[in-house]
């Protein structure tokens, strides 16, 4: 089955084509078709995962040459190793849940079929990205993912905010992708190939100087920064919540944003080689995580809180991966790689669940604002329970999945005290804002009675995927328990980096559990018991509160520092365009018209004049000469005989008599001319007479 794993990504592509071209008008059929295809992909992914496990995670690679140029060769191929197999299962699982959920969520939307087409296209791109075996292909799918996310964020493009959000997402990620592209150029220049294995082999052989290698790694990482919404390009992800909630769940929680983390994990040998470059990655991850967690504390839009939470968790993973690269370079053992990929998987499940549950809440109550919710638990039991399971998981409560991976991330920061403290702080904040959300949404008194009375539980087609994901959010972490000697950890490490099994650290577990519980406890006190007033704290730390509430003014800073200058340059360019370029073009046209006017005059008067003039001359001559043709045979005969006599005379005189003047000829010609003149007169007079006589007869 591994041999045919390329089908996993092609099946959704086929479903996209089918829906777009044939099934667009049949909503049920197109939804059914795309769900069926993602389920097939899901089953295949699970089989591939099982096969990969049975191979002990040994990579399977198949490829063929695509472009073969001197100095560079590009291939198309698939690489199935542990990371790929896990990502396949994650993507297809969340994808299938989201598609089934969307049947309920998108019901009645006028673009229902198109939504499923886009989802299929997205899944194709994401699965292709995961399956790719070289940087060239991953870049192609990378951009496809960017495109589909653009389409999906702007799915409700009639809304101005959605249209703006999708542009923002597209352009922001494009900035990161530019760096990625430069990184690819450097790789191509130094290595002459894009294949992961070949590139890493050449890098470890030292084809790149350390400085260039660091630059390349940072450039490649900038692609991940854009896609995974890391600082300073994190601004697009919260705005991307303008898309339909299933999209947020699929793209902005579980899969697409995971692509950046996946890329860092995939290119890990490169980051290991740079050493200090990997530290940059870790620091960026930490800053992002801290910043986003701080912002999430004060937001009031349920999806925005989740979005910042996503950014924060992605920062966690990036940080863990970066620390792994740094520690490995310096020869100290680290669990960062395992922690990052493990958290990536768990996060996909519980964050997908959180978004879908939030979507269910929004679907039921009709608003995003948590200040208008409250007391929803009795009305939406399934949604509330699944949401709380996911919250427990993300907060890192034993034995939910988040606990295990978060514990590993904390473990990976052990050698770096600053990281350790901040990571625990973030964990505390995460627990706090997640439970703030839970308490404000599901408990207490309803704040908006009107909305509350209309609230209802979502249909089964939406709650079942929630239940399934909730199950995964509980158990998916168990595969990585530190007591399992051959669990997730040894599976992921199979291949280049031999695992160094570490003993479970109970102290660390207890600390992180305590941190999470205290976060939940604080939220409980503030938003359930209301024994601590959030407003008072907000007043106390007024500056911090304002900074957090306004997202550290990133959008405003970008507006002033980047967008406005670019806009003014663009305006200047526009005026340059209008005045100079358009002027040149119009001037050319004007000159052409002038020239052609001159040519037209020449044509009419000179060329046509010559043509018409020659015709006119011929006509005049003909008019004059036509009277020669009298129709009287005798006059012709007379002319002939007169000319014969004339030529005879000339010959006779000049040749035989050798006179210098043909006197006789001249006399003859004069005589004939006189005769003709006389006869004309006679004839004219006769005609006159005959005319007169005709009149007489009349």
């Amino acid at each position: 089955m591994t041999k045919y794993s390329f089908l996993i990504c092609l099946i959704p592509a086929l479903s996209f084509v089918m829906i777009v071209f044939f099934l667009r008008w049949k909503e049920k059929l197109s939804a059914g078709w795309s769900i069926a295809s993602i389920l097939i992909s899901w089953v295949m992914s699970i089989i591939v995962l099982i096969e990969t496990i049975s191979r002990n995670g040994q990579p399977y690679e198949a490829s063929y040459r695509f472009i073969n140029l001197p100095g560079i060769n590009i291939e198309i191929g698939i690489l199935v190793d542990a990371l790929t197999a896990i990502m396949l299962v994650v993507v297809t699982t969340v994808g299938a849940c989201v598609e089934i959920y969307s049947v309920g969520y998108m019901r009645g939307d006028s673009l229902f079929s198109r939504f499923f087409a886009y989802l299929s296209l997205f899944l194709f791109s994401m699965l292709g990205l995961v399956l790719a075996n070289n940087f060239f292909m991953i870049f192609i799918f990378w951009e496809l993912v960017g495109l589909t996310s653009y389409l999906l964020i702007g799915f409700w493009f009639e809304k101005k905010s959605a249209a703006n959000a999708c542009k923002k997402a597209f352009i922001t990620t494009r900035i990161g992708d530019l760096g990625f592209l430069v990184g690819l150029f450097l790789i191509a220049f130094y290595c002459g190939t894009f294949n992961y294995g070949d590139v890493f082999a050449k890098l470890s052989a030292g084809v790149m100087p350390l400085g260039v290698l660091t630059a390349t790694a940072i450039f490649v990482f900038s692609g991940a920064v854009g896609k995974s919404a890391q600082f300073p390009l994190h601004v697009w992800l919260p705005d991307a919540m303008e898309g339909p909630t299933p999209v947020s769940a699929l793209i902005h929680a579980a899969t697409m944003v995971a692509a950046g983390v996946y890329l860092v994990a995939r290119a890990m040998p490169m980051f290991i080689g740079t050493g200090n470059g990997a530290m940059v990655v870790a620091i960026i991850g930490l800053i992002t995580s801290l910043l986003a967690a701080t912002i999430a504390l004060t937001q009031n839009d349920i999806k925005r809180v989740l979005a910042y939470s996503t950014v924060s968790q992605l920062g966690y993973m990036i940080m863990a991966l970066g620390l792994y690269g740094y520690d490995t370079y310096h020869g100290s053992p680290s669990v960062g790689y395992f922690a990052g990929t493990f958290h990536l998987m768990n996060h996909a499940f519980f964050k997908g669940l959180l978004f879908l549950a939030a979507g269910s809440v929004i679907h039921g109550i009709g608003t995003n604002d948590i200040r208008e919710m409250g007391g929803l638990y009795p009305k939406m039991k399934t949604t509330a329970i699944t949401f709380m399971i996911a919250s427990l998981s993300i907060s890192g409560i034993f034995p939910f999945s988040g606990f295990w991976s978060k514990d590993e991330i904390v473990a990976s920061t052990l050698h770096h005290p600053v990281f350790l403290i901040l990571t625990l702080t973030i964990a505390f904040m995460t627990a706090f804002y997640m439970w703030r959300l839970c308490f404000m949404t599901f408990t207490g008194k309803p704040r908006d009675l009107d909305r509350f009375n209309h609230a209802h539980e979502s249909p089964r087609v939406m709650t079942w995927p929630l239940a399934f994901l909730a199950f995964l959010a509980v158990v998916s972490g168990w595969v990585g328990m530190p007591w399992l000697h051959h669990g997730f950890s040894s599976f992921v490490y199979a291949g280049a980096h031999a695992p160094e099994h570490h003993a479970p650290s109970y102290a660390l577990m207890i600390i992180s559990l305590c941190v999470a519980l205290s976060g939940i406890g604080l939220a409980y006190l503030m938003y359930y018991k209301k024994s601590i007033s959030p407003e008072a704290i907000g007043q106390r730390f007024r500056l911090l509160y304002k900074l957090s509430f306004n997202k550290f003014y990133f959008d405003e800073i970008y507006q002033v520092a980047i967008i406005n200058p670019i806009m003014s340059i663009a305006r200047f360019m526009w005026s340059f365009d209008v005045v100079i370029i358009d002027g040149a073009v119009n001037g050319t046209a004007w000159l052409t018209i002038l020239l052609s006017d001159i040519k037209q005059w020449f044509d009419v008067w000179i060329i046509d004049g010559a043509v018409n003039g020659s015709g006119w001359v011929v006509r005049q001559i003909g008019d004059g000469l036509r009277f020669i043709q009298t129709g009287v045979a005798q006059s012709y005969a007379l002319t002939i005989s007169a000319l014969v006599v004339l030529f005879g005379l000339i010959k006779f005189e000049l040749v035989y008599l050798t006179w210098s003047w043909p006197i006789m000829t001249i006399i003859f010609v004069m005589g004939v001319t006189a005769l003709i003149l006389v006869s004309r007169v006679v004839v004219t007079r006769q005609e006159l007479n005959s005319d007169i006589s005709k009149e007489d007869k009349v």
Partner: protein
Amino acid sequence: MFYYLALAAILFSIGLFGVLTRRNTIGILMSLELMFNAANINFVTFNKYIAAEALLGEMFAIFIIVVAAAEAAVGLAIVLLIYRNWNGIDTDNYNVMKW
């Protein structure tokens, strides 16, 4: 020889004059016959005084007489048709071939 040639020349001139001046088509045809016969006299004359033993001139003269007879037949037929079409055989009657 001079007299023969003079006769032929006079005869030819008379014929030519007739062709050019007669209004009657029959007359023109008859003048044509005169010109033929002037040519015949020339043939015969030159044959007699230049190559008497060859008899080529006499042969040619006889041919011309034959052709002239045929020509006269065709010509008279045309004249007949002219008469039927234009009710007259004067050359003025059928001057349609003009500008």
